[in-house]
């Protein structure tokens, strides 16, 4: 349905016969995308929002500011490799960094559930403080609200962030072009599998930890090595697949990816095999994908690999003119298939 057909003030739902919010609307899959395209975007359409990047770049008195916001509702709030406080700061820092910005100021707002132990909140605040210090950003404003027991889940956090985009840097998914090399900064699936194994009480052997990390240094290093980078994105919810599928569809270009080139930790692969999940669809919180003109790809790879967060960086694919709108995955045995997003949450399979 186009926005013109929608009577004023009426909601352009339903989405494919879905008449209420389902968990899948928050999964980063097709339902999430439909919600944004059909309900959110028509209401607020403007040139900045329309790009649907993770941050808006706005010009103000000759400076270009990156502005972003994100909410964090993770269960459990403490997990192997981090907690919700650190995640909330890193996530917003990363959304700014992926726009090529130097992150400067963050807001931090808490929605607290009645009965939350103060010591837990203290731990979350302390970890957010450390993360902010580590990323070189200041928390300059904030808010706290409390909801009754059962109306929330321990702690929800919203962060917004502002950064400044240096002159000469222009990053957007709209700029990717045929021939661009696609470089991934490290292993995928670590965050999602760490959370899932903790949440479901699954005990896997080996060290499963969230990869939550601030990417501003890594992004700056990549940009220094190749200022003509076209786009960067941290593939969080929906995994690497969501980023690739979204870029291919939006720019109506093809993307070819070599599955064997994508680094995945053995422990994560093992857990995914057991659960019947595809690591390409599992969330990350400290990884980035770089779309750079072919001639700059080696420089970007070198720069990433020199940083501890980019040790496992690899070139995983290429943007093409062929099969526009689709991501083609070359499988390890020499076959190929289309990579697509699941409709909603990826669910573990029966066998």
């Amino acid at each position: 349905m186009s926005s013109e057909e929608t009577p004023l003030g009426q909601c352009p739902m339903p989405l494919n016969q879905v008449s209420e919010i389902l968990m899948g609307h928050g999964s980063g899959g097709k339902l999430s995308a439909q919600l944004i395209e059909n309900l959110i975007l028509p209401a607020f359409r403007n040139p900045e929002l329309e790009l649907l990047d993770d941050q808006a770049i706005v010009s103000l008195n000759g400076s270009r500011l990156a502005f972003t916001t994100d909410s964090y509702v993770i269960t459990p709030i403490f997990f192997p490799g981090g907690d919700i406080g650190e995640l909330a700061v890193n996530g917003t820092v990363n959304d700014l960094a992926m726009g090529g910005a130097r992150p400067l100021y963050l807001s931090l707002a808490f929605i607290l559930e009645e009965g939350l132990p103060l010591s837990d909140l203290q731990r979350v605040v302390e970890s957010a403080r450390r993360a902010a210090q580590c990323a070189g950003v200041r928390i300059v404003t904030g808010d706290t609200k409390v909801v009754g027991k059962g109306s929330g889940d321990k702690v929800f956090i919203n962060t917004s962030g502002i950064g400044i985009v240096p002159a000469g840097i222009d990053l957007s998914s709209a700029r990717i072009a045929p021939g661009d090399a696609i470089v991934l900064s490290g292993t995928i699936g670590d965050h999602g599998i760490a959370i899932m194994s903790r949440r479901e009480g699954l005990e896997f052997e080996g060290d499963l930890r969230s990869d939550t990390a601030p990417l501003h240094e890594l992004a700056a290093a990549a940009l220094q090595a190749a200022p003509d980078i076209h786009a960067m994105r941290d593939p969080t919810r929906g995994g690497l697949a969501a980023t690739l599928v979204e870029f291919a569809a939006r720019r109506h270009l093809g993307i070819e990816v070599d599955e064997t080139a994508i680094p995945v930790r053995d422990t994560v692969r093992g857990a995914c095999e057991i659960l019947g999940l595809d690591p390409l669809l599992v969330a990350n919180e400290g990884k980035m994908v770089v779309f750079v003109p072919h001639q700059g790809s080696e420089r970007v790879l070198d720069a990433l690999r020199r940083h501890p967060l980019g040790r496992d960086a690899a070139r995983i694919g290429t943007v093409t003119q062929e099969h526009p709108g689709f991501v083609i995955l070359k499988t390890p045995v020499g076959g190929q298939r289309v990579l697509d997003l699941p409709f909603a949450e990826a669910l573990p399979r029966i066998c």
Partner: protein
Amino acid sequence: MKYLDEYRNREIAAALTEQIGRAVTRPWVLMEVCGGQTHSIVRYGIDRMLPPAIELVHGPGCPVCVTSLEMIDRAHAIAQRPGVIFTSFGDMLRVPGSCGDLLTLKGRGADVRVVYSPLDAVRIARENPARKVVFFGIGFETTAPANAMALFQARKLGVKNFSMLVSHVLVPPSIAAILQAPGNRVQAFLGPGHVCAVMGYREYESLSAHYRVPIVITGFEPVDLLEGILMAVRQLEAGRAQVENQYVRAVTREGNCAARNLIFEVFEVGDRKWRGVGAIPKSGYRIAYEYRDHDAERLFEVDEIDTHEPPECISGLILRGLKKPCDCPAFGKRCTPQNPLGATMVSAEGACAAYYQYGRYLDTGNPGDRSAGAGAR
């Protein structure tokens, strides 16, 4: 990763493909029985690596797909009862019944929980003595031992608030039904590796002899599948019809005796309706009389629920190897994983869903649902 990488090795796969090419002299139609095998074939593009003379058709072995619509509706009816905690493997959650799926019911307040083992459901029952905890026990012979163990434990420990809605299906009767069907095209089977890990393959020997059809018990990784195809093609070309075991690292002729004994302690063989196929005599397990106090179908009195499938859906023909997903005019258009019309689109391992997920709708010219490509964040 050991036990995985060597079965996804490009060189070994290429060598097997070449051997298949040398072995084949005329067209053959092979059916892989398991949904897991179908998934692997489409995921890795194996069917497209084969010589054109070999056609793979996709079998009925996706337990989620073939669970009858009545059973799904019964599950939904139980899940909505007050005081019930309804537990299930994850992939049953999105399977649509006549009206919505378990996830939708969850959104409306039903207590639906994903478990990774039926024993977790027994634990939930012990932790919630005031609630009725029901597990949706579906699957082929593969999942039967774990489901049997849950019922066995519940009875032994006296967990009276635990029950199971059982809709187990069996592979050999479905193979017989395919071979007996008019117009059958299948000339050889890649047998179900994990089912046979439990049951052994003696049952398949009589099938193979009776119908003069080669059956190669096959694993699930690309190299397994290619090797299974090679073994089947060699039998066909030589005019042999035997049971052979490609999946020797998991399957023996006798199977797992302890698991089988437990199955027959708790279940008995009965008739079963298959989604898309219809009733097949003696093709399922039901809960044995001694365990009737844990039989959710009896306890919740839902056995009266009866339903009908959309007439447009050709999944019955697909499940018998007579049609391919791309032959269906609704595929990728009116029928998608979001709005499945029938059996083979409802689960990720169903042939239609696998074709859809891995982009095979491109072959049909149907655009599929690409609206969602953008704005995934």
